[in-house]
Structures are given as C-alpha cells and as structure tokens.
C-alpha cells in the first residue's frame, strides 16, 4: 500500500547540522585510546629510483620511538592485490605487484618505503627525519603518450610495456556510420589531473587483542567492503575484523573508497605491537597521494548528418593512471566506467571506443566525484558543440536532436537509463536564461567589443549501481539495505550499511521512515558506520543513498505496518488488518472510525516492554531489514546545465555571470539537501575545470602539495548557482527518488568551455584543453589573432 508520505518533499533542517556547526562533530582524529601510539610514513623523494639502503637505527634509537619497519619487514604479509581487491573488467588487465611498503624500488614521489611508530606526533616527525634512505635514481616516465613508446622507461619490467588495462568497446556499425556522414568532427581533447580533496584527510586507528580481534576506525566510504578485504589480507577470521567509520567524516568525494596501503600498515602494527596505532594523513601527503583523478586524452570523432543527427562516434582514450598501486580501483576502474558512460545522454547507435590505461611515475588515480566520466563528458559535449558550429546549428537544437528520447533506454554500449526528460529540462534551462533574448544581447555586445557567451552540457547521472553491474565488476552487491527497529519508547532506529559523510542521510532517511510510520523525523535516529551493528552494504558511493539505501528503509518501514496494525487491533479489541489503519500523527488510526486510535508509542511498548499484551502467539519485537534491488539494470537522472559568461580578452579572465543547473532528482526527499548536493557538485566542477591542477615538474616532483598551490575555490571565486528542479520520478524506486551527488561535477567543464568559446566566436578560438585558466584563454586568443 503506497500511501502519500507526508515528509517527502519537505526542506526540513538537517539533523546533522547542529553538532557540526557548534563543534560537536566526532571525527577520527578526535578518538583517543589508552596506550595509543602514532604512525607515520617515510615517503620517496624520487619519482623512480632503486632503494640501495635504508637505515632506521638512528630513528629507532630516539626515545619514544616504538618501531620502524621497511619493505623487507612487511614482505611476509604478501602482495596487496588479490582477486577480491582487483576490478574484474572485460578487457586485458595487468596487475601491479606491490606490498604495503615499497621494496627495493620506488615509483612516484610520495611512495611509502618505511613506517615509524612513536609515542606522539612530534617524536614521530623527528624520527621520520632520521630514517636514512639511499636512492639510485632511474629514468622516469610522466607523459602517458611517452609511456606507450617501446623505449619508454618501465614501471613494471615484467609487463613488457606500460599498459595497465586495455579495452575495445565496439557497438553497431561505426564504419558504415562514418561512411554515411556529411560531416566528421575530429578533435583531440585533454583533461588534466585534478579531482577531490576533502577537508578531512585520510586516517585510521587500529586496535587489536587476540580475544576480539582487530578493530579499525577508518575514514572510509565503505566499511563493510574494507572489512572483508582487510580480513582477507591480514588472514583474520571475518569474526575478528571490525571496521568503524567515525560518526563524522569531513568529506570523501570518492577518495575514501579505495583500500590504501597505510591502512594495512596500521592494522599490521597494531597486531605486532599490541597497542592502538593511529595514523592521520597530513595535507601534503593527501595532495601527494589522493584525489588525483581525470587525466585523460581523447581523440574523438563524430559522424554527423547535415540535419545534426549523430550517426556514430569513435574515441581513442588514453588514461594516465599513475603507479596503479591502490586496491579496489587500481587506477583503471574510473577510466573504464568513464568509457562506458562516454555517450551518456546522447543516443549514438554506432560506437567504437578504444581505452588504453597506462602507468606513469605519478600517484595512482583515485576515484573522484563524477567517477571517471569528467574527462569524457568534457570531450563529447565539446565535440557536439563543434559539430553544431560547423553546421551552423543552435547548440540546444543539436542536443535535443540527439538526446535520449524514449525511456527506458539502453545505450549502444549497454547502459540502462530508466527515466528522464531532456526536452523538458532544456525548456526550463532556456526559459531561465531567456535564451532567445540572450542571443540578441550577445550580438549587440560583440558590436560593442564585449564578449558574452552561453554554453550547455547535458548528461545522465548514475543513481546507484545495481548488483547486476556491480557483482561482475567489483564482486560486490549493489542492493540498498536498512534495518528499521522500534525501541521500547516508540522511537525508531534505522541502521544502514552505508557510511554517509555529508549526504544528509540522517535527515532524509528519518523523513521517509517517519512518513511511512506516521511519526515525525525527530522520532527517528539513523545509525551507520560500524560493521558490527549495521547490515552489510557496499558503502556510500555512486549516488546510491536516495536511490537504493533510502528505498530499503522505506520498504523495511512498510514491512512493519501489518504487525503494528495487528497489535493496534488487538489493543482496540477489534478485528482489523493493515488496510484498515492509517499511520498518522503518531497514531495508528482506524480509517472507518477515526476516534478508534492507538498511539504508536503504545504499540512499541507492547511489542518490547510489555509483550504479555501482544496478541496470542505473536512474536515480540518490532523490526525489519529490507534489501532493496531495483528491477532494472540501471537508474539515472537526466540533467542539463548552462553557463553564461563574459570574457575579458585582454587578460583571458572571465566571469561566470550565471550558472543554471536543471537537475532531475526523481522525487526529492528534502529539496534543500538536493540543492546542497548540486551546489557542492558545481563548485567542485568549477574548481576542477577552471582552477585546480596537480602539477608535476620534469623530475616528477609534485609542485602542488599545499593548498596555497592547489587552488580550490572559495565562495569568493564562485558564481551564484541557480538550481532548478525538473524531476521525473524513477519507476523503479518506491518513492520515485533518485540519487544525487556523484555526477554533478561532470556537467561543468563542457558548459563553461562551450560558453567561453561561444563568447569568443568573433575571435575564432577553439578550446580543447583543461583547466580553463585565464592564461590558457588568453594564449588561445593570442594564437587566434596571430593566425589572422
């Protein structure tokens, strides 16, 4: 029985915010245990070198130092990657062989080669300086195209080349499509190295005793997945391995989804020393090791008819995966999914995608919000813009012509898109921009020497990943799971297996469960993060909160209603079942006579405190666990973004005058939370597209290891972000809700680049590379002027 849920669609204030705003958040570094010691890493100062000697004697002699280990001391633990921690993707995969500490050879600046444990952080840093390492530098390779050359330096000599992963994804008949084309757009697009950089860096705290085993507090998006991989690696029975994500985590953006070498070391050391071992990454380490994503070259061709119909696509993608020594994603899972999502919201029937992932002497790519698809979406939406310009077609018209029109839709490469409405989204976008008038304003501005432009991007955003896809790819389930459990006082605990860290689950799950049970969100408390108290789930990844996890909570709440009705009927001494009651205002109310009602708190009391009052034969307790699996191979939301800019050609500086995001959340549970996800996603997208870049010098030294050099925008650097809802409920979730969060940054680079290029039409500038720094724009303008 799907009754209207009274709390759905309400922008109530977030339950999380009070503790966060007043400083009551509980983060990993806040946890202190008796006898705790701290861990730190000695990291390579060379991008590629043989380690000829490591001497830890001076470090271990320092008072307060407990131990120091090198690669040789951890070799017995075995290689990090197993079948379980390596993606199982179609195509040719090679597996880097490595240990928690590098042995004999380092492969990037920041590569951990020794670990030190001390009583406090000051002593620890003194000791780290005392570890003496001798290196014999080797040739390095930093450029992915250079990495492909036969004489390039090799990261893994036994591979025979530097190719980590290769896959060819053909669909339809691309050769025929190109033969029939009136126009072929061919361009090379380059997306730089950028990604996520959470406010809170990585960290963990490991505690071991032989009775209970190992407990690891960990900044992670996926406590359950980490648990089973850690148990496997450490050779512990699953019953002896517990992972806890602390109550609060200062963001992740994908960077806390992989399994990292440092976590394995902390666990090993806690077992070895029989002391709690804590590791908190510093900002330099974070910028040196995680959040580095994107970094792709696309050589993309579109086959287009005169009327703008895109017949086919060819793309040769080259992804620079860095050293590829990070478990679960191994640097190539992101480019793989990016390739699968390349054609995205466009209906392109004939496709030939060739993806090559190479290793270089840089940090391994880590997941970053918009998982793998940031670079490809830039390339495709830029190529479509170039096609429109060549055909003198309006950029909206060409997109509408090629957008997915009928749902459900299965893309040429097999991505299932359940629902959406691109024409409706474009209509709202154009109305918000006053698009027709803008074109007039733009021509007038050009005549007056001002450069105004508008750019669009469109795309589908992942809304959770179903088991059907996730099981073969990552050997993990995609279902959402939640346990809804009444306590004896009529309040409800919802335990989820994911680990929210900014997504607002405590609020939105409370809203839907309250609505299903006739309670108020204040009556609901959501718990998460501890593998020993929450159900097994894949974690907070891929926009699965509002699609999968929340849907499981809805189903679990609904599953309680028959029993609640039976208890109410028994207490009212009447014959009635679930259909005879509504649950509203904290009561089970008999629909045929609303004066007949039982407080829900009374029902819970009977079920738990006073079971002697239960109907004869009924089991005590009032709880249910649901596993939600959508009956489809993929759910998505369809979104359109537009940027309006003014460019100042003397300097290449520009102002994003307006940023309009028309997003589909299916059925927003809390529209304010949805807007927050979009604001954050656009901000990250603008930072990534316009300002941020991980820069390596010719020796492989990273030059952007402080936030002074890695330029994350603040509110002062961002435009007002206009969010407009255009919701098409998903037919596959109980409330029609869709996930929101993962995809948004991917919408930004093409929207802004298209707008800049549009503004500069009189100067004939073509933008093919990111980031969109003013200097890059200025140089393009200079080059265009020289051509004239």
């Amino acid at each position: 029985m799907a009754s209207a849920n009274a709390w759905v669609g309400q922008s109530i204030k977030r339950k999380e915010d009070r503790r966060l705003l007043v400083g009551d958040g509980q983060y990993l570094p806040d946890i202190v245990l008796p006898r705790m010691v701290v861990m730190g890493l000695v990291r390579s100062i060379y991008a590629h070198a043989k380690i000829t000697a490591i001497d830890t004697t001076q470090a271990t002699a320092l008072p307060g130092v407990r131990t120091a280990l090198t690669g040789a001391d951890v070799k017995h633990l075995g290689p990090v990657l197993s079948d379980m921690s390596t993606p199982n993707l179609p195509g040719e995969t090679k597996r880097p062989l490595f240990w928690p500490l590098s042995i004999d050879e380092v492969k990037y600046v920041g590569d951990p080669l020794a670990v030190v444990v001390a009583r406090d952080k000051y002593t620890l840093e003194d000791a780290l300086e005392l570890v003496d390492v001798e290196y014999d530098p080797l040739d390095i390779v930093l450029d992915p195209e250079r990495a492909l050359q036969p004489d390039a330096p090799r990261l893994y000599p036994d591979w025979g080349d530097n190719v980590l992963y290769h896959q060819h994804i053909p669909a339809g008949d691309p050769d025929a499509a190109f033969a029939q084309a009136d126009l072929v757009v061919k361009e090379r697009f380059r997306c730089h190295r950028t990604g996520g950089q959470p406010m809170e860096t990585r960290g963990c705290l490991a505690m071991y005793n032989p009775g209970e085993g190992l407990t690891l507090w960990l900044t992670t998006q996926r406590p359950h997945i980490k648990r089973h991989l850690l148990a496997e690696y450490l050779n512990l029975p699953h019953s002896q391995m517990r992972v806890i994500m602390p109550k609060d985590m200062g963001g992740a953006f994908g960077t806390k989804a992989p399994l990292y070498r440092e976590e394995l070391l902390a666990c090993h050391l806690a077992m070895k020393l029989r002391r709690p071992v804590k590791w908190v990454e510093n900002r330099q380490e974070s910028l040196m090791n995680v959040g580095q994503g994107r970094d792709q070259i696309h050589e993309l061709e579109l086959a287009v008819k005169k009327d703008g119909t895109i017949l086919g696509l060819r793309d040769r993608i080259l992804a620079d995966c860095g050293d590829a020594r990070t478990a679960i994603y191994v640097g190539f899972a992101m480019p793989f999914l990016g390739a699968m999502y390349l054609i995205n919201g466009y209906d392109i029937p004939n496709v030939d995608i060739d993806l090559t992932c190479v290793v270089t002497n840089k940090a391994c790519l880590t997941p970053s919000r918009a998982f793998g698809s940031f670079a490809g979406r830039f390339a495709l939406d830029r190529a479509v813009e170039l096609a429109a310009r060549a055909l003198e077609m309006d950029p909206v018209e060409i997109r509408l012509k090629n957008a997915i029109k009928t749902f459900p839709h299965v893309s040429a490469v097999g991505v299932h898109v359940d629902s959406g409405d691109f024409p409706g989204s474009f209509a709202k976008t154009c109305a918000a921009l006053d698009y027709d008038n803008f074109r007039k304003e733009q021509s007038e501005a050009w005549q007056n020497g001002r450069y105004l432009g508008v750019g669009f991007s469109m795309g589908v955003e992942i809304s959770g990943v179903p088991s059907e896809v996730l099981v073969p790819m990552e050997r993990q389930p995609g279902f959402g799971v939640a346990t809804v459990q009444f306590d004896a006082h009529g309040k409800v605990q919802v335990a989820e297996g994911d680990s929210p860290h900014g997504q607002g689950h405590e609020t939105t799950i409370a809203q839907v469960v309250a609505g299903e049970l006739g309670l108020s969100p204040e009556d609901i408390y959501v718990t998460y993060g501890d593998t020993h108290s929450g159900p097994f789930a894949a974690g907070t990844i891929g926009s699965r909160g509002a699609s999968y996890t929340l849907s499981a909570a809805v189903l679990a709440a609904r599953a309680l209603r028959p029993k609640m009705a039976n208890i109410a009927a028994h207490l009212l001494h009447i014959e009635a079942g679930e259909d005879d009651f509504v649950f509203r205002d904290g009561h089970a109310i008999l629909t045929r006579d609303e004066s007949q009602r039982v407080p829900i708190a009374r029902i819970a009391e009977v079920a738990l405190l006073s079971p002697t009052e239960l109907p004869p034969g009924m089991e005590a307790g009032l709880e249910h666990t649901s596993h939600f699996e959508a009956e489809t191979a993929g759910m998505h939301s369809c979104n359109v973004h537009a940027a309006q800019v003014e460019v100042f050609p003397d300097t290449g500086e520009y102002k994003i005058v307006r940023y309009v995001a028309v997003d589909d959340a299916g059925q927003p549970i809390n529209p304010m939370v949805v807007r927050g996800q979009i604001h954050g996603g656009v901000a990250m997208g603008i930072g990534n597209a316009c300002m941020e870049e991980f820069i390596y010098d010719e020796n492989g030294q990273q030059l952007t290891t402080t936030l002074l050099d890695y330029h994350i925008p603040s509110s002062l650097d961002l435009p007002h972000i206009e969010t407009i809802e255009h919701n098409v409920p998903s037919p596959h979730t109980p409330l029609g809700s869709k996930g929101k969060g993962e995809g948004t940054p991917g919408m930004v680079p093409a929207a802004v680049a298209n707008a800049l290029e549009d503004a500069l039409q009189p100067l004939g500038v073509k933008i093919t590379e990111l980031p969109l720094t003013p200097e890059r724009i200025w140089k393009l303008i200079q080059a265009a002027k020289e051509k004239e």
Partner: protein
Amino acid sequence: MYPKAIENYFAPTDVAEVLTLLQQHGEQAKLLAGGQSLMPLMKLRLAEPQTIIDLNQVAALDDIREENGRLHIGALARHADVAAHPLILHSYPLLAAAARNIGDPQIRNRGTIAGSLVHADPSADYPPAVMALDGQLVVARADGGTRTVWLDDFLAGPLMSDIGEDELVTRIEIPVPPAHSGGAYAKRSQVAGDFAIISVAAHIALDPSGVCQQARIVVGGVMPKPGRAEQAASLLQGKTLDATLLAQAGEAAAEEVETEDDVRASAAYRRQLIRVTVPEVVRQAGVRAGE
C-alpha cells in the same frame, strides 16, 4: 606538519626586553608576531628555531596614528586593523586595499604588517603598497639605537630582508600624502586570497588643474622583489591622465619590469597582466587624487 622541539619560549612585555633577548639568543631565535608565515614554515620544518620570542605581549606596538607629518603603523598592527582603520581608509586607501587582499579573515586577524614586510615574499600584498607610499621601517637595535630604512632597500630578495639578528622592526612610517593625491592597489590571483600573479600599487599627486605632479608605480609578484615602474611613472609626469597616456604607461611598465615563469603563470602572461593592470590602477589613483 609538527615543528621540531623549541628549547626556549619567551613572552617579553617591552621592546627593551625583546632586544635583550635577541642579543642573548641571536641567530637561534625567531620572533613570533602573527605567526602566519613562521608557523607554516616551522610545521613544514623549513624553519627550526631553538628559541621563540613571542611579541604579542609587547605593549603599544600596534598603534596607528599620524605624527609630525607621517603615518606611524606599529609593527604588530594586524592586517584586519589596517584594512578597517578610519585614518587609513580615508587617507591611504591603497594600503587598506592591500591589507584587505591578504589571505582570508583568519590570516588577516592574526598577521602583522611588520611580519609580512620582514618575511619579504615578492608576491605578498604589502610590499608593493608600502613601496608606492614611500614607506620606511624603523628598526630598533640592541645597542639602544634605531635606524630608519626605506622599504626598497630593506627588501633584499625573495624571503630575504635587511634585518639583523639583534634587531626589531618597531613601526612603519609613511609620509602624509600631499593634497590632491591618491593611491590604488589591485591584485590578480588565481583564487581569492592567494598570493599575487602580479599586483600593482600606484600613488599619484596632481596639481589643482589635474596635471600629474608625481607618480609612483610598483609591481608585485615579480622576482626577486617588487619592482618600481620608473619609466611608466615618468611618462605621467606633467601630463593629464587620459586613456592613451595610461595605456602607454602600461606598455612601459610591462617592458621595464622583469617577469619570470613559475607555477602560477608564465613570464609573458605576467607582462600582459602588468600591461592591463597598471592603467586600471593608475586611473583609479588619479580619480582619487582628483576627489
């Protein structure tokens, strides 16, 4: 990101005591004012002082007042105080603008003017601004004497300044600007609050008819220290500041100030930003001078 152990920490309450401590501890000691450069350097272990002499308890080192035709700014005046001081906002708006451009609110609440000048980062906001105002530093010495030094001479190079181990900058002095004069400051940076790609400070004095009597233009964000655009300034002398002249000044400044490549920008782009920014800033300074 944790500093090396410090052996001595002192919190003197007057200048004489600071100087005595400097004499005793000399090269092993670092002065802690706002800590906005020193603390990060210590956390990165690029600075490892044995002794910290904390200036924050020293009385009357943060005064801002005009005296004998000169503006005195105490060494410990915080950026936020300089940015909001009525006297500075009214008569030295370019200095207020420079202070307002530094970092973020937390940095401006702690950081001090003398700390920034002694640190001598070529891309910092204060150095070009204080140079454009012909500012001097008053330095107290352990022997009881004081010396006064032009900021131009005090800045020796990137992160290098002319300060002895037993010396303390006690205040900045700036001549009270003449009637019909005005200044302006602008910075171009990659994100708000960042160090400059380039910055420009200009101070212009006009005669009553609007003809430029004197111009000072200083460009920051260049190596080894902010550079005076002398030729650009001399172009303005005796002329009315019209658009053509301003553009010429921008060209001249771009030609005469040396620029270099770094992670933030290329030398060529810096030249272009100087070319564009000098006219904007001089124009604004001229408007203020005429008000």
